[in-house]
């Protein structure tokens, strides 16, 4: 599936997601890196040594969900934009997602944009909570959106109309 279409299967997605308990405790990274390629900036980006790939740079990253503080430093550093943050501690009905988004126009805080799945299909409206684009993110802005909990494993992208 993934290698034919670019869309990971549900099983693959669930495999890289932390447990619901961990998600409900506070922000944590989700690393959707399913293919062994020579790459390790996520490891160097993490100040808490929460991401590990071992001796071979081709290994897949492993996230230590206890060490991960959800700081988000890895999100804009991943050249494949494969990392996002999820946080289920703020509300029982929604999840906060922090996703990288390198397109114009950027969404505006306080507005509603279209929430998309991994095929780019519209699934639900989402609230834009924060738009961060500091120099240290090097032109990979990180957008915080609040998404209905039912779309925890589906939501992955946004579309900004206008």
């Amino acid at each position, binding site marked *: 599936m993934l290698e034919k279409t670019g869309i990971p299967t549900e099983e693959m997605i669930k495999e890289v997601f932390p447990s619901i308990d961990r998600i409900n405790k506070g922000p944590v990274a989700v690393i959707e890196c*399913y293919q062994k390629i020579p790459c390790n900036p996520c490891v*160097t980006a993490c100040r808490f040594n929460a991401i590990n790939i071992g001796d071979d740079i*081709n290994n897949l990253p492993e996230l230590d969900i206890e060490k991960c503080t959800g700081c988000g430093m890895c999100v804009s550093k991943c050249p*494949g934009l494969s990392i996002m943050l999820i946080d289920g501690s703020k509300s029982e009905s929604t999840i906060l997602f922090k996703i990288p988004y390198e*397109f114009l126009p950027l969404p505006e805080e306080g507005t509603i944009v279209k929430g998309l799945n*991994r095929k*780019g299909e519209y699934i639900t409206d989402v609230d834009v909570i924060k738009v961060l684009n500091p120099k240290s993110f*090097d*032109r990979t802005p990180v957008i915080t959106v609040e998404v209905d909990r039912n779309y925890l494993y589906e939501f992955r992208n946004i579309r900004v109309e206008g």
Partner: protein
Amino acid sequence: MKHVEIAIIGGGPAGLCAAISAASSGANVLIIERNNKLGGQLVKQTHMFFGSEKQYASTRGIDICNILINKLSKFKDKVEIMTDTTVVGMYEDGVITAMYKEEKYIKIKSEAVIAATGAFEKTLAFPNNDLPGIYGAGAVQTLMNVYGVKPGNKVLMVGAGNIGLIVSYQLMQAGVEVKAILDAAPKIGGYLVHASKIRRMGVPILTRHSVKEAIGKEYLEKAVICELDEKWQPIEGTEKEFDVDVMCISVGLSPLNELLVMRGCEMKYVPQLSGLVPLRDENYETTVGNVFVAGDISGIEEASSAMVEGYLSGLCTAEKIGYKHEKFEELKNDYLNQLDDLRSGAVGKHILEGTKEILVN
């Protein structure tokens, strides 16, 4: 006749790194670049690179270009740069001829040469493939990222390797609609993280598909695609039409190898390295003494590998003509290890196989 110690042909990622490495070893180098500025194809790479910190991972190609040029500027007294100058011949007596703009020929005699000429984009055979609007994917990248000009409004991308995927993403960043990405192979050839980030923007990736024909009078108006069977043959009745004004061809690169053939280097066709490449030793020296190579000319790979090959080749070329870097062994091992790392995974396996085919002692 101009006399230099090391002539480096091409000022892209491989050539720049070779120059930095050779100059830091103490050799005097001349970079001959046909473009009006240094950087090669780095100047249009707006995406972040993969690899490790040593290959500037997570930094955008356009910024790596400036980092390398800055590094090079530290060796001002050792480095001469000739831009707008195209090398047109390399002869048995070691003489290089080059043309400055369209104005004058220059003869250069050097103790050693590093050929880092890069690659060119392949094309694909189908009816009307010569219509304006059908461009190399790299060409479209130049047009939009160097000159800020959109290639058109609706694009069909042919090829799902890294270039096809990256350029599709960059087209969307420039505000151009990408209708679909095709690839004749059963699997996506590029990094899957690239594929996923385009797919979640809503662009379908169609493996086992190819172009049947292009339609248009003066320029491209429509493209007809079809599905391929397991023997790569078109399946009748699967044709689909796309209203597009641009088609990008991204079906691979070929090494720009003419100068090496002319110079008499022993060459071999190696499919894993995407074409006719020179036999070379561990130091990247070809079968012609003091003629070294680095980057895509010695086999198509990622720019990360081209940079490491440049550093290695520059180091070894300098050593060959009597400028041994004080940390020669340490640096050489480091570069060899970096190359091994980049090629040791599943995606680099074919490169590793290919390099075995051309390695000589």
